[in-house]
């Protein structure tokens, strides 16, 4: 239950380090995307940042 791998995975997920892997996994699972090509890592990262920072995202 408590091991280094779990902690590492947690840090990667909270920080967004593995967002692209999660995106690819979701993309493959989701049938409606079958005809499309997934975004490149660079494009995905760019669009993620745009989406994240176009609204109130940090508090006082």
């Amino acid at each position, binding site marked *: 239950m408590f091991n280094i791998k779990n902690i590492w995975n*947690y*840090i*990667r*997920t*909270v*920080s*967004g*380090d593995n*967002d*692209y892997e*999660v*995106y690819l996994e*979701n*993309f493959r699972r*989701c049938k409606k995307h079958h005809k499309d090509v997934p975004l490149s*890592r*660079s494009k*995905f*990262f*760019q*669009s*993620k*940042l*745009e*989406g*994240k*920072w*176009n*609204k*109130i*995202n*940090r*508090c*006082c």
Partner: protein
Amino acid sequence: MKNIKNKIIWGLVSILGAFAFSLIALQREESINAIWFITAAICIYTVAYRFYSAWIATKALVIDESIQTPAVRLNNSRDFVPTNKWVLFGIHFAAIAGPGPLVGPTLAAQFGYLPGTIWILVGAVVGGAVQDMVILFFSVRRNGKSLGQMAKEELGVLAGFASLIGTFIIMIILIAVLGLVVVNAMKNSPWATSTVAATIPIAILVGFYMRFIRPGRVLEATAIGVILLLMAVYLGSVVDNSESMRSYFDHSGLFLAWALIIYGFIAAVLPIWMLLAPRDYLSTFVKLGTVIFLAIAIAILQPEIKMPAVTQFTDGSGPIFGGSVFPFVFITIACGAISGFHALISSGTTPKLIDNEKHIPMIGYGGMLLESFVAIMAMVAACVLEPGIYFAINSPAGVVGTEPNQIISKINSWGYAVTVEQMNQLAKDVGESTLFARTGGAPSLAVGMATIFANAFGKHLLALWYHFAIMFEAVFILTTLDSGTRVGRFMLQDMLGNFHPKLGQTSWLPSIILTSFIVVSCWGYFLYIGVIDPNGGVNILWPLFGIANQMLAAIALSVGTAILIKSDKISFAWITAIPLVWLLIITTTASYQKIFSEDIRIGFLSAASSMSKKINEGYVPEYGIDVAEKLIFNLKLDAGITIFLVIILWVVVIDVIRIALKTKFNKHKRKLSNV
């Protein structure tokens, strides 16, 4: 058997919490150990979470595990993504935890440790955490709608407008006051200035790394950035020791304010990936790391609290900001107890990531409790300082004078022992030329944190710890400044788009430049006035920010109360109505006093008329007239803003009362916007 064991455990936790809390509240003659603050906080939080949040979730909100959340129903792998509860807790906490819970308690310590500590604990449990959880729940039930949209749909167009304008005003005042905190920390400090300046190229370097060299590799880029930040703290001492390099970074407050204004404009115009996003990654890691480190250090060191439980400044004569303990301790603590700003996060990103409704108490209520715990640690860090040192650092020149002997004799006259030699030695130990009149909370918090860190992990490193703490505060204050300016720009573009569609396009460069300029000018103006104000600026800006933030919280609680009433849960409406009534009392009283008090350190209008009188009677030298006239205009402007905030708050509350009465007399056809 298990049931009895549980009851015994929770009974013991409750008794320990009550004992620790009574020790904090009743101890007068002897000093008290900081560990009791931590014990009281942890016990109160766990009991409140286990019982109060669970009761609200099951009885009032009726959380239903079988209902699919928007993240599950509308999963698009981008905005709506079902997220593990622990991961979402981390994301939500990183979003709500800003500089507020650090600065507010540090300033409120002028009343002594007790008033602020009580409000941090009680306010969070009964108000702030309830607000965050209730708004999160209602937003989840409405496909992740924002507070503004919910206010508009449940209360009316005026309430929607009030939350929009309230958000914009908070953003402007918040950025100005946080800018002032950073400026006061960097003022005539080459070490602090060079370290903070170094965070800009470091963030840009990290941005380029994540964009071009290793796209999206957040952790490795952040690790490189954090190492560079630590090197920048060390290299700051090299700058400080070099006569030739010192001159490049030794600047007055006014120069630094202009530099920050220009920086703010450039940061708002630059692409997100270049500065804002990488700085946020750095600040989040530094922030979480430092807070954990501080908690460990307090647990190891168990420092004694030196500040008295209650000081004589509860009468309103405090040097840092004017105003009596009621209502100003509630206004000053701000985010550590209840923050309207949190409602924007709870109705923004977080509801779109909730995997199951049963996670709502942990994310909403639990997230706020952790933020409140940060505020408790800030209070401890401020109160482990000798009170004389605390007041010598935080008192502005306008109150205590400018000469060291003059400052010390003034502080001694209040009954707090401190000497010029002691302050000089402390300044030398932390690598500063002086620590007098560094109003704003950041330097005193840094001295407090550095003292704790140095005693726990190495006394000879006090100067490094101090500048690490300054860098830690500055790095996420600048993130708030960058992101706040950008959000202000989006809001303005949205509004201007109604008049000229092209101006509403967020990617059109002329619109970006124009709206960024307007937003930066707004907060830049308040920052400039704060810097030239001989009373330190914090005296005006922080209460104004506190009033605006609590007003937004009152609007969020009004939305929560209205939805509960309209959902036939009027018997549960008190859970949001009680904190709402309390916020209404404190914001209205504070606003009234800030506008009309005859004490010139509290009332905007009396301060303006006193200053005018001094000019007319020739007491102000010719070179000071220009500044005095600017201050007079600003005081009148602040009075106008405060009146405006109070009016829109009462309009919203009257709307809630109208809905309650109509519901009671069954004349109101209840229409809820939930899905």
